[in-house]
């Protein structure tokens, strides 16, 4: 994307996933391609008696086997996921940081809710036993910035670090922020988002969102773009990517998986879904302009797909506004209907799926969704083979942020 130093371009070289449908990019992609839905009754302790029943829970993840205990005691689950995903991304990229160049690697994450589970435990100590029983790690573990800080400390990444708090769409904004750091001269940035909103306190907070689905049955909980749309099912997890300057990546012989070609972000106000039409359309235009591509060149759109009728309508219209006649042809998909929306982690899972879809030449489907009631070429049922060069990922947040990110496939090695 736009860079201050000529010729520097941010590319994706590594993918690290901790998702409800799989840990690791391979497991995640296999389930995503197959259109498996893992939405289910929430089983976590303290969460089973609330009216919010259905979500995507991360399975098969043992923090103790992924993360040194020293980091576990001072971090919340959202940071456990982010640290594990960061490790996976760096390993996937075959990246070995140069110990002599600690400032060459930065970290950027986005977070929507921080460490609710850790915070609840310490606040219960506060009210149950008194201030002296609150552990000092409460001062850092709940905080939005915790994952960036701990990934930086653990990996010895002392380059530009940042945290984006711009709502769910912040997941895409974090990648754009990282790309700007690369443009200014940093060779590599570990960037992404992971969330852990399935804990009692965090769940109760979400009950205040009118957009959250209170459906009782998993297959009915999250059906965007249909007449049965009744909100969204939340999820936990997310993904971290290794982004590198293209030349730096090529110098070390890395596989350039995709380019971050363009990004646009707008704000239209909390839960003002009708207005999000113009905001999202503007974000798409800004992103396409930056990528210097025409709407006809977009091969697949990963939709925000909120599952709220007014929001779904606004998204379909935004695509029509930004794409013109091309909107009727471009395939649209929303694999997140099979996992739920992991807040800031959700667009990261979509970016990861987009990179893998372009590599594999496959359009992943939208699980559970069959009859679409908007003018969209939504991929339903089974995955479809397709030659994909360019993907557009869309994300909106409940508080009014709208973002669009254009990815272009890397050259085949």
């Amino acid at each position, binding site marked *: 994307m736009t860079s201050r130093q000529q010729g520097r371009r941010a590319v994706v070289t590594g993918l690290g996933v901790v998702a409800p449908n799989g840990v690791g990019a391979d497991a995640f992609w296999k389930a995503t391609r197959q259109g498996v839905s893992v939405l289910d009754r929430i089983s976590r302790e303290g969460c089973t008696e609330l009216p919010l029943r259905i979500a995507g829970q991360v399975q098969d993840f043992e923090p103790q086997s992924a993360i040194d205990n020293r980091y*576990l*005691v001072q971090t919340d689950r959202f940071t456990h996921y982010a640290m594990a995903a960061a490790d996976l991304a760096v390993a996937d990229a075959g990246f070995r940081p140069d110990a002599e160049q600690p400032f060459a690697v930065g970290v950027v994450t986005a977070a929507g809710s921080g460490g609710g589970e850790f915070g609840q435990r310490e606040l219960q100590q506060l009210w149950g036993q008194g201030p002296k029983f609150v552990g000092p790690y409460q*001062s850092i573990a709940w905080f939005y910035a915790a994952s960036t800080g701990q990934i930086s400390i653990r990996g010895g990444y002392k380059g530009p670090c940042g945290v984006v708090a711009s709502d769910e769409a912040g997941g895409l904004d974090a990648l754009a922020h990282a790309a700007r750091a690369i443009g200014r001269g940093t060779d590599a940035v570990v960037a992404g988002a992971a969330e852990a909103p399935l804990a009692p306190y965090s769940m109760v907070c979400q009950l205040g969102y009118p957009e959250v689905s209170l459906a009782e049955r998993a297959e009915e909980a999250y059906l965007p773009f249909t007449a049965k749309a009744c909100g969204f099912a939340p999820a936990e997890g997310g993904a971290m990517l290794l982004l590198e300057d293209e030349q730096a990546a090529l110098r070390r012989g890395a596989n350039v998986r995709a380019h971050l070609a363009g990004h646009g972000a707008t704000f239209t106000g909390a839960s003002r879904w009708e207005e999000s039409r113009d905001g999202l359309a503007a974000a798409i235009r800004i992103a396409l302009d930056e990528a210097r591509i025409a709407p006809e060149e977009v091969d697949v759109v990963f939709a925000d797909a909120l599952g709220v009728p007014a929001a779904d309508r606004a998204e379909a219209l935004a695509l029509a506004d930004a794409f013109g006649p091309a909107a009727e042809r471009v395939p649209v998909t929303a694999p997140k209907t099979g996992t739920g929306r992991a807040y800031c982690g959700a667009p990261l899972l979509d970016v990861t799926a987009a990179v893998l879809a372009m590599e594999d030449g496959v359009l992943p489907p939208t699980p559970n969704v069959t009859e679409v009631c908007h003018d969209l070429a939504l991929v339903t049922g089974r995955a479809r083979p397709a030659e994909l060069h360019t993907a557009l990922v869309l994300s909106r947040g409940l508080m009014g942020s709208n973002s669009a990110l254009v990815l272009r496939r890397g050259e085949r090695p």
Partner: protein
Amino acid sequence: MSNTLSYPELAALLQARAGVSVEPSALEQPGAQFDEFGVDSLGLLGIVGELENRHGLKVTSGAESAKSPAEFLELVNASLSAKAGA
């Protein structure tokens, strides 16, 4: 529990509060520093809090920024014996 803090007890507290596994004998080595075991000041602060809650006393301020296990034990045990003598 005795009224002084021993190296094995400190090792157990480091494990529980700071997530750091370290042998008592390593803590006891002359010149041993918390840094080399990966113990940070927030970890020590948590241990101070635990000791204060357990013994119902105030540990001499500065213990949480002790650089070595020997220095930490000295400060904590001075507080414990001051209370015992009071």
